[in-house]
Each structure stands twice: as C-alpha cells, then as structure tokens.
C-alpha cells in the first residue's frame, strides 16, 4: 500500500514536470469582441501547431490599457508580447521595455511591411524596428454626396487633387446655409479629450499649415507649436466652432449618418467608413484631407505588436507574432473589419483600399502625405498638453496663450528629463 502510494506520488510529480515543460507566452492586447475572439482562435491554432507552447492572452480594455501597462511594469509582470499604440513606441523603447524585433520575426513579414508601417514601428535613435503590425490607419474627409452636389462642390479624384484651405472654408460656409445641414462638419469632438483622437486627427492640420507639435530636430516645442502658422491653423478651427459649423462634443459621433444627416462632412478615421456606409450606401464620398498650407498631411499609426525585454522566450514570442501576421483567418477578420493595410500582401487582398476601391484615397495618403506623430519619449506629455490646449481653444480660450502654455509644458518635461538622452544629442 505504501509502495503504491509512493509510486502514485512519483508518477504525479513526473506528470507535473511534463505539464510544466510547456513554455508559456503571455500576450497583452486590447480590442473589441471580434478581435478578442480572433486572437483567441489564432492562439489555439498556434498551440495546435506548437504543442509545447501555451499562449496566455491578457486582455486590457482600450481606455485602461496604459494603466494596465503601468501596473505590469511596476509589479514586474510584463508580458512577452504586447500590443502598443504606435506613438508611444519611442517612450517604451527609451524606458527599456521593448527589444528589437527584426531578428525575431520571419524575414518575409519584414519585407512585406509598407513604408508607413515600418515608420510606425521604428525607433528614431538606432533606426531599428521594435514593433510590427498587420494594419495601419489614416483619416479622410467623408462627404454627403447630395449636399456636395447641391453646393456644386468639386470632388477631388486623389491626394494630389485635394481641396485647398480656401476651397474647404468656402464649402463650409455654403454648407452652413444649405437646407437640412445643421453642422457643415463633424470633426469628432465626441471622442472626447481622453483618447488620442485630437493629436492624431488635428496634428496633420498643423503639419499641413507648415508647423508641428514639436521641432523634430531640436526637440523643442516653444517656437514651433506656438508659431504663427500653428496659431493661424487653430484660430481657423476655433472660428469653425464659433460659427457653429462643427458638431459639438455633446452630440456624439453619429451626426454624419444619423436621421436627417445633420452633418454634411466628417473628418473621420478609416474605421468610420463601415458605420457610415452601412447607413448611407452610395451617398458617401471619400476624399483626401484638405491642404491647409504648402503641403498635404495625414496621420498614420495604430496598435502594433512588440516583444518586451522581460520575455524569457523572445524567439518563441517572435514565432507566434509571425504566425499570427500570416494567419489567413486573422487576415480575413481584419479585412471584414475594414482594417487599413500595413502589409503589402494584405493590401493586395483588400478590395476596399485597392485602386478603384471606395477607400483607395486613404491608402494613397499613406505613401504621399502620412506623417507619424513625434517619435519621442516625451510623447505622452506632448499629446496630453496638445489635447488640453485644443480643448481650451475650442471652448473659446486665447489661441496663442493656450499653445504657448502647452509648448512650455512639453519643454519643461523634456528639460526635467535632461533632454531624454540620447535624443538631446540629435540636435
């Protein structure tokens, strides 16, 4: 009896040892139910192909992702693989959380990345790739065909053909007087000031006008964010709000396709197409972002995947990422979700963004006008300061004063961190 018990215990220990032999890869991500399910299915398929690996998915809601990440850092529980918002990459790399990804990912995936996708995953100091994704993003100008025809507006055929500032403001004025139009444009103030929307969507308006959030050579914001072109650009936007041309924050994000179509234009993300087209069918027109100055500008960057420095199995983590990015069903779901292509092979397989497709102009912007948000470790401060300034300006505050205060706040943070070396040596 005692021997049998001893044998049983030894067998249990041996089995336990076998179970422990599995390598666990923790993957932290965000996303809506469709994506959560898709990641789960990808993980199952990877585990089936690699029986010695266990993929443990850690979900964090989009609006609390940064808090979850901070908690993971502080409690030394960083996952092996993590999803991250592209503009925060510089901060994460500088802080030592991410490792170069090129040696860990299949070369054919690296070769398949679009320029914009490479840009969003690259750390500017060593020019190395730290993150990769299937998708990218952009913002376009959606228009209501009936309203545009009613005011005899010119419909641009491509990015080179975008409206000028004068044309755009002229159309806003005409639309404001048109029957049925309550607001000429929705700039999606309804997304609030706690998301990345303001910096992501309005930043290109500054860049198009000839300025920026920060000087990308000296990494100084004072003299750039509060320069005359920026003051002028945001005074223009403040005027739109004062004139009652912009959908207010309290009216949500559906005024372009809500009953009666109260908003005539919408400065919206590529994801907005699915919502708008479902309701408006052929009445929707997709146009490039207007030129507010000497050049056109559009945003890029989305949630991409990196491998953390805490990973004890970076090779397996890379293997999982390569598997996921090539997975057919994962790509099928992304395509159904109108995902904006970040890999050339995925773009070729996405009729929505292909030549002649309804969102072709959005994809054209990626190669012609896309400008990444400032790739600097101070980005979290840059974006929060700018969003605060825009909110103040939209609520009637002094434009110059608000931008100067934001610029000073950004520079203060950079100074407090000794210029975030080696960024201070870039000048």
């Amino acid at each position, binding site marked *: 009896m005692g021997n049998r018990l001893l044998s049983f215990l030894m067998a249990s220990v041996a089995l336990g040892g076998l179970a422990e032999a599995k390598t666990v890869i*923790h993957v932290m991500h*965000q*996303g*809506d*139910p469709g*994506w*959560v*399910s898709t990641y*789960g*299915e990808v993980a199952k398929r990877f585990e089936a192909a690699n029986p010695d690996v266990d993929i*443990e*998915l*850690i*979900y*964090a*809601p*989009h*609006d*609390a992702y940064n*808090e*979850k990440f*901070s*908690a993971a850092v*502080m*409690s*030394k*529980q960083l996952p092996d693989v993590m999803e991250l918002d592209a503009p925060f990459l510089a901060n994460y790399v500088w802080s030592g959380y991410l490792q170069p990804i090129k040696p860990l990912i299949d070369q054919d995936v690296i070769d398949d990345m679009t320029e914009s996708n490479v840009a969003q995953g690259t750390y500017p100091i060593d020019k190395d790739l730290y993150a990769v994704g299937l998708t990218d993003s952009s913002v376009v100008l959606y228009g209501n065909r009936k309203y545009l025809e009613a005011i005899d507006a010119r419909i641009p055929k491509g990015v080179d053909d975008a409206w000028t500032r004068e044309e755009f403001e002229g159309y806003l004025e005409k639309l404001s007087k048109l029957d049925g139009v309550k607001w000429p444009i929705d700039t999606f103030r309804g997304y609030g000031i706690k998301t990345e929307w303001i910096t992501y969507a309005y930043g290109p308006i500054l860049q198009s006008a000839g300025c920026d959030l920060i000087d990308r050579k000296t990494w100084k914001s004072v003299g750039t964010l509060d320069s005359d072109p920026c003051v002028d650009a945001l005074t223009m936007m403040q005027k739109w709000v004062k004139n009652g041309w912009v959908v207010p924050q309290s*009216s*949500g*994000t*559906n*005024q372009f*396709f*809500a*009953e009666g179509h109260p908003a005539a234009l919408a400065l919206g*993300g590529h*994801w907005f197409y*699915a*919502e708008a087209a*479902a*309701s408006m069918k052929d009445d929707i027109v997709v146009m490039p972002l207007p030129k507010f100055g000497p050049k056109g500008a559009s945003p890029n960057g989305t*949630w991409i995947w990196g491998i953390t420095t805490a990973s004890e199995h970076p090779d397996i983590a890379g293997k999982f990422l390569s598997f996921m990015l090539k997975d057919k069903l994962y790509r099928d779901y992304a395509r159904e979700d109108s995902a904006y292509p970040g890999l050339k092979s995925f773009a070729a397989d996405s009729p929505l963004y292909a030549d002649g497709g309804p969102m072709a102009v959005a994809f054209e912007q990626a190669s012609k006008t896309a400008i990444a948000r400032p790739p600097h470790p101070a980005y979290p401060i840059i974006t929060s300061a700018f969003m605060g300034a825009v909110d103040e300006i939209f609520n009637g505050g002094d434009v110059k004063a608000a931008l100067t205060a934001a610029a000073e706040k950004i520079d203060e943070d950079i100074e407090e961190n000794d210029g975030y070396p080696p960024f201070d040596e870039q000048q």
Partner: protein
Amino acid sequence: MSDLAIPTLHTEAKRERSAIGSLRVVQTASILVIALVIVSPLFMLLIASLKDDRFQILADMGSFRAFWVSNPTLSNFAEVSNLSGELAFGRYLVNSLFILACTVGAGLIVNSMAGFVLAWGSLRGRALVLSLVIALYVIPQESIIMPLVIMVSRAGMTDTFAVQIVPWIASPLYIFLFYQFFAQLPKELFEAAEMDGASVFRIYRSIFLPLSLPALATVSILMGIESWNQYLWPILVTQTDYARPIAVGIATFFGQDSIYWDRAMAASVLMMIPILALYLAFQRWFVSSFIGSAVKG
C-alpha cells in the same frame, strides 16, 4: 350678517380646496416629469438592447426613434449570455455576484464590529482612532492603487477572487456610518446588558446588531454598488476570465475604433438587474435609515 357669512365661508373653503387641488396637480406633474427624466435613459437602454443592428442604434440616438423598436429581438442577450467562448459573460456575471456577496457579507461584519467598538468599546484613545478613520476617508483610491497593485502581486494574489474582495472589506466610510448609528442608541441598553454579565461581543451580536437593520441595509446597498461597479482595480489585478467581473467584460464592447452598442446595451441591462434587485430588497430599511437620521424623536 350671518346669512351672508355662511356662503362666504363656503366660497372660501371651496377656493382653498381648489387651491390645494391645483397645488396637488402641479406637484404630481412635477413628480411625473422628474420620474420621466430619470426613467427615460433606462428605457432607452432597454429598447436599444432589443435592436439587432449596432449602426441603427447609433443612428437612432438623439431622436425619438431611440425609444421605439419595430422588430424586438433577444439575440443580443443570447450572445452576451453565452457561457462559453472567448467572452464568457455568464462567467463574468457569476464572478461579479460572488465578489459582491463576499465583499458585502464580510464588510458588514468587519465594519459594524469596528463601528461598535468605536462607539461603545473600552478602547483607550477611541477619539484618536475615530479621527484617524475619518482622516483615511479623504485619501482617494487612485492614490494608493499602484502601491496596492505591487503589494498584491508580491503576495502572489493576482488573478484571484481574494484580491478583488479583501482590500475593499474594511472601509472608513462604512465604519463611520456604523459608529454614528450605534452611538445614537440609548446608553441604557448597553449598561443593562453589561449588568446582566453579557460580554461586549454578546451585546453587539444580540442587542445592537438586530437594531441596526437600517444601517446594515444602507451599507449593503452602498457597498454593493461600489463592488459591482469596480472597474480599474480588477483590470490591474486580473489577467484572465477566471476571476474577472462583468464591468470589465462590458468594456470589451467599447473598442478603439467602434462601439458594439447592441451587445453593450444588452450587457448593461444584465448588469443592472442584480444591483436593482439588491436595492429593492433593502429599499424599505434604506429609506427608513435616512428618515431616522433626519427626524429625531
């Protein structure tokens, strides 16, 4: 004179009655308007949960169509109640109920005991302890959340039910509420029981606790709502569906690019039911506790 006075009195009484009647009509109308303002969002939530097209829900918002559904369907409820799959809302709901029951159950015992000892115990420096308890109440949860995360992760408590229950059992606010309630009860009760040889615990359990139903109900409701709505803490200390509550599950529907209004509404309705039931169960004592605190006999 008297002949004239009688009709005059009648007329005045009539006028007074009609004035009172008018006042009642205005009062009733006001109450109805306020009730409508309070109930309409809940009604809109319920109606939206019966629509199967999230884009339609979004398009209907801001118009009267938000209060009408032509083809009601329970498909959203079926989807969110799915007990298996990647998004096990049934599991989240059970988790939330378990966390609520444990937190409220343990919270009532711990906080009422602490309140009783502060009110009637022979503890030295009671006033100082009470001041410290009140002082603790002003510390916002957000300021201690990260140190707490580090503590529980070092203790190996992450991704458990305990980590969502234990830190929130004792609360300065509820200790103070119980202290206030017990302190109002007549001194003679305590002294008589003490003379009969009852221990402090016996006095608390057999005499004071049965008398504190209004306080127990109030704390149950407030603690229940607090536990039910916990959002950031569970996100920080749980990793998988094993112990996650429904508030985190609902957040899944609010993606970076789009919001799944149909399922979010259905999940919100499901989330509302238990807390509404808790309120209705304790409503009588909850209201009486407020009346009791306002009216001194």
